[in-house]
C-alpha cells in the first residue's frame, strides 16, 4: 500500500484522494472485463446508559473494500477489510473466480462510466470529532434534566443512547466512474420511567450536525411524558382518530419504501399493481394534501448522491398531492420499461410534506382521539396493502375536545401506512425526525387500535 493510502486509512476515515489511489490500485490488479470497487470507511463513537450509569461506551473504526468482477454476463463480488497488497490481490482474484463460476445473468447491466454528481455537504467536523468526554457530558445533562423534570414522580429511571459516526464511501469502475461522498450523523434517544413503574416517556433526535439537537431538552421531554403517562387507563380497542407525533410517523412512512419497487408493481405483487397488469402511476393513492419525495440535495435530508453502482441519485417525487408519480426503477427494469432509473427508494432520504400546523394544533383540532408518541416492533402483516402490526409506546394519551385528558394503556394496532394516508384528517409541519428523514405529525381517522397491551 502506498504511503498516501496508509495515511488516509490510519487517520480513521478515508479521504477522497486516498480512496481514489486505493481504487486505482485495485482496478489495476483486475483482469476481469469490467470491475467495480466500492470502499466504505467509518469511525463510530457511542455511549449507552441506564440507571444513571454509563453501561457501555466504545469506539470503532474500519475500512472495507468490495471488488465486483464481471466476465461476459457473469458477475460476483468479494469483500475484505485487510488492505495489504496480498489481501487485495486475493480479493480481486476471488471475485473474478466467483464471477467465472456464476451462471450468465440475463439481467446484467454493464458497469457505468463517468457520471456527474451533486455535491452534498453532509459532513460536519464537530460531529466527526465528538469525543467520549463530550458524550459523557451530554448524557449527564440529559439525565439531570430528566431528574429535574420528573421530580414530582420521585427518582426517575433513565436509559438511553448517544452515538456519532463519520462515514466515507467511494465507488470506482474500470470504465472511469469515480464517486466519493462522506457524511456524519449523530443520534440521541432517552427513555424515562417513573419509580412506581406506571409511567414511561421517550424523546429522540438525530441530525448530520451534532449541534442540531439538545440532549437536555430530550431528557426533559421524556421525563415530562413519563410523569404525565402514569396510571394509564384501559380504553377498549377499536377504531379511533389518532394523532401521530412526527416520530411515530417516522416509524411508519419509511415502510412504504419497499412497496415503491417498480418491478414488483409490474409483476402484480404490490399495492401499486393494477389488478389487470401494469402499475398505478398516475392514479390517486393518498389524500391530495400528501407529497412524498426523496432528494439527497434537500438541505433537510442531505442524502447520498449516488447508489451502490455509482448511479446518480436525484430528486424523485413518489407521491405528489396524493397521486403516484414514480416508482423505484433499477437500471435493468428501467431499461425494460422505458423509464429512468431511480436507484433505491430511500437512498436520497425521505420526506413527507403537506402541512404547516404544529402537533399541538393537530391535537386542538381533535374532538376525540389517541395521541401516539412512537411505535415499537412493527412487522408486515399483508404486503398487498402494506398492512403492518406494532405497538404504541412511551406515552399514549386520550384527546377529548382538543385537549389531552388521560394517560392510556398501550395498544397493539394493525394499520397500513398507505391506506391511512387516505383517511387523513390533518397534516402538520414537517420536521427532521432522524438523519435523512423529514416527517410531520398526522391526524388519521379510524386508526385500527386492535388490542390492549399491559406493557408500560
Amino acid at each position, binding site marked *: 500500500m502506498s504511503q498516501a493510502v496508509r495515511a488516509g*486509512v490510519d487517520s480513521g476515515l478515508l479521504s477522497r484522494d486516498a480512496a481514489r489511489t486505493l481504487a486505482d490500485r485495485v482496478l489495476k490488479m483486475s483482469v476481469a472485463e469490467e470491475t467495480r470497487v466500492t470502499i466504505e470507511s467509518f469511525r*463510530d463513537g*457511542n*455511549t*449507552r446508559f*441506564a*440507571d444513571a*450509569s*454509563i*453501561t*457501555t*461506551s*466504545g*469506539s*470503532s*473504526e*474500519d*475500512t*472495507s473494500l*468490495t471488488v465486483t468482477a464481471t466476465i461476459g454476463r457473469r458477475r*460476483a463480488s468479494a*469483500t475484505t*477489510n*485487510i488492505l495489504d497488497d496480498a489481501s487485495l490481490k486475493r*480479493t480481486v482474484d*476471488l471475485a473474478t473466480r466467483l464471477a467465472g*463460476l*456464476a451462471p450468465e445473468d*440475463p*439481467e446484467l447491466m454493464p458497469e457505468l462510466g463517468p457520471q456527474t454528481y451533486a455535491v452534498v455537504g453532509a459532513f460536519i467536523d464537530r460531529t466527526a470529532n465528538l469525543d467520549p468526554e463530550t458524550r*459523557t*457530558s451530554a448524557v*449527564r445533562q440529559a439525565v439531570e434534566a430528566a431528574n429535574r423534570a420528573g421530580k414530582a414522580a420521585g427518582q426517575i*429511571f433513565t*436509559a438511553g*443512547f448517544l*452515538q456519532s459516526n463519520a462515514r466515507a464511501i467511494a465507488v470506482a469502475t474500470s470504465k472511469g466512474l469515480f464517486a466519493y461522498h462522506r457524511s456524519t450523523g449523530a443520534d440521541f434517544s*432517552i*427513555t424515562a*420511567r417513573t419509580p412506581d413503574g406506571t409511567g414511561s416517556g421517550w424523546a429522540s433526535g438525530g441530525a448530520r450536525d451534532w449541534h442540531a439537537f439538545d440532549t437536555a431538552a430530550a431528557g426533559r421531554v421524556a421525563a415530562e411524558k413519563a410523569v404525565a403517562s402514569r396510571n394509564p387507563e384501559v380504553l377498549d380497542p377499536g377504531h379511533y382518530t389518532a394523532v401521530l407525533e412526527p416520530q411515530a410517523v417516522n416509524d411508519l412512512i419509511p415502510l412504504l419504501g419497499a412497496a415503491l419497487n417498480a418491478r414488483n408493481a409490474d*409483476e*402484480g*405483487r404490490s*399495492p401499486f399493481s393494477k389488478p*389487470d397488469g401494469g402499475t398505478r402511476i398516475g392514479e390517486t393513492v393518498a389524500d391530495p394534501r400528501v407529497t412524498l419525495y426523496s432528494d439527497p440535495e434537500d438541505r433537510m435530508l442531505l442524502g447520498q448522491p449516488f447508489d451502490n453502482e455509482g448511479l446518480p441519485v436525484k430528486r424523485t417525487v413518489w407521491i405528489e398531492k396524493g397521486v403516484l408519480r414514480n416508482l423505484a426503477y433499477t437500471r435493468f427494469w428501467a431499461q425494460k420499461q422505458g423509464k429512468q432509473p431511480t436507484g433505491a427508494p430511500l437512498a436520497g432520504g425521505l420526506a413527507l410534506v403537506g402541512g404547516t400546523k404544529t402537533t399541538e394544533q393537530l391535537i386542538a383540532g381533535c374532538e376525540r382521539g389517541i395521541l401516539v408518541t412512537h411505535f*415499537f*416492533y412493527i*412487522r408486515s402483516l*399483508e404486503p*398487498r*396493502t402494506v*398492512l403492518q402490526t406494532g*405497538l404504541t409506546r412511551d406515552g399514549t394519551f386520550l384527546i377529548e375536545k382538543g385537549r389531552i385528558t388521560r394517560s392510556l394503556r*398501550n395498544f*397493539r394496532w*394493525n394499520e397500513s401506512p398507505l391506506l391511512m394516508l387516505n383517511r387523513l384528517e390533518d397534516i402538520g409541519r414537517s420536521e427532521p425526525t432522524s438523519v435523512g428523514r423529514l416527517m410531520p405529525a398526522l391526524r388519521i381517522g379510524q386508526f385500527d387500535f386492535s*388490542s390492549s*397491551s*399491559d*406493557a408500560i
Partner: protein
Amino acid sequence: MPNNPTRRDFIKTAGTAAALTASAGLRLEPLAQTIEAPSADPFAIELANEALNAARSAGASYADVRIARYRRQAVATRERQVTNVSDSESYGMGVRTLVDGCWGFAATSRMTKPGAREAAQTAVGISAAAREVHKRRVELAPVKPVQGTWITPVLRDPLDVPLEEKIALLLSANEAALKVKGVQFVNSGVSALREIKTLVTSEGTNTTQTFIRVFPTFSATAVQTGDFQTYEEELAPRGEGWDYVDSLNMAGNAERWASMAVQKLAAKSVEAGTWDVILDPTNLWLTIHESIGHPTELDRVLGEEANYAGTSFVAPPEKVIGQLKYGPAIMNIQADRTQPGSLSRVAWDDEGVPADQWLLIEKGIFKDYQTTREQASRIAKLTGVNRSHGCSFAESWSEVQFQRMPNVSLLPADKDISLDDIVAATDRGIVIKNRGSWSIDHQRYNFQFSGQAFYEVRNGKITGMLRDVAYQSNTPVFWNSMDMIGGKSSYWVGGTFTDGKGEPSQSSSVSHGAVPARFRSVTILNTRRTA
C-alpha cells in the same frame, strides 16, 4: 396434512439429542468429523498481549481482547437466475477495559502492534470518561482461566463447498418449483459463515474457537388476478455443516413447497374470533424466542435495554424467581449453549465462561435468568448460582460483548405424543406452521404472530386450509392455556440468524427447540384488508 418425510426423519435425531443432557446430545455429532479445530494464530496472540499490556499500563484493572476473522458467503437466486454471489472477510480486534469499575471499549481493523496499543489506550480513555456518569461499580463473577480450542463439528464446511454445487442445488430447487401451475416467482438462497475467534483476558484465559453456521432459504409466490400469496418454507439456520443442507433435499421437496403458495390462494379466509390453536414447532420456536427468550434476559429486567428492546414483565427478580407461574406443569424451558447443531452453541462465551445448560422454567415455575459475569452477582442470593451462565456475545470484533440469548427450548413431554395425536384430540382449532409476521410489546406481554400455512381442525380432523390468520395473546395467559404438548419424536429445532438487541444494535444467532403444542381459546384475527 402434507407430510415431510425428510423433516420427520431429522426430527427424530434432533429431538432425542437436544432434549436430553449434553452427553446424550453427542448422538447428533457427525460420526466422521473431518475438520480439526484451528489453534490460535501466534500473531493474534502477540497483538492481544500488546493490547493487554497497554491497557494495564494505562490503568485498566481488567481487560479482554477479542481477535476475530469472519468469512461470509451468500448466494441468492430467483427463478432461473442467480441474483447475487458474494463473499466477504472481516478481521479485527476489540479491546474491553475496566477502570474504576467502568467499561470502555475500542475496536480497530489496524492489525499492527501500534494499532493494538492505540485501541487499548482508547478503551481505557473511554472507561475513564465514563466515571462522570457512574452509580454502580462493575463486579465480575469469578471464572477459572481457561486455555483451549474448539470447532463446530461438521463433515463439510459450507465455505469449502464449490460455488457450482450451491448454485446447481438452488437452481434445481427453483426449476422444480416452477413446474407447479400458478407459481410465477421463486427465491432461494444460502448463506454461510465461518468465524474464528480468539479471546485473551488479563486473567489468563486464552481460547480460540471456530464457529460454522449455515442458512438455506426458499420461498415461492403464486399470482392470480388481483391477488398473490407467498409461501416460505421453514428451513432453519443451524450451527452445522453442508451435510445439514444436503439433508433438506431442497430439490426434491421444492415442488411440494411451491404448491403451498397455490393452495394458499384458494384457502378460505379465516373467521376471526376465539379458536384453540395447535402450533407446529416450525411456528412455536419463534413464539418461545419472543415470549420466553427475551423476557428472561437479565439486562432487560435491570432496565439496561429500556431505551431500545424494552424491559420485561418477569420482574423484579425477588418477586418472580421460584414464584411466577409462567405456564402449566408440563412446561419446562431449558437454556443451553451446549446443544449440538444449535446456533448459540459454544465451548466458552465471549468472557471465557464455559458453556452452560440450565432450566429457566421448571414445571411451569420461573426459575432463573440468562446472565453474564457482571450480572451474576445481582441475583446470586435469589438463585444460589454464583457463576455466570455464559451468555456473553458480540456479533463482531467491532462491537462490545453483552448479554445475548442462549438456545432456549421447550422440552418434550414424557409421553410420545405427535402433532396428529393433538389434532385428533381437538374439536375446533387451527394448526399453524412456519414463521409468519411477528411482533411483541416492550415488556413482552401482548404479542401477535402469524404463520405460512394454516389448517382448520374440526372434530379431530384437518378439514381444509385457511388464510389471513394471525393469533394474538398475552404471554402469561397464553402459556398458561397450554394443555397438550408433543413428545420426543416431534421435537424440532428452529432458529434465527439475525436476532437484534442492544445499542448500537447487534445481531446474534440462536436456536429454539420445540414440540407441537395446543393452546386453548386464543384470539384469532383476520388480516385481510381492501385497498
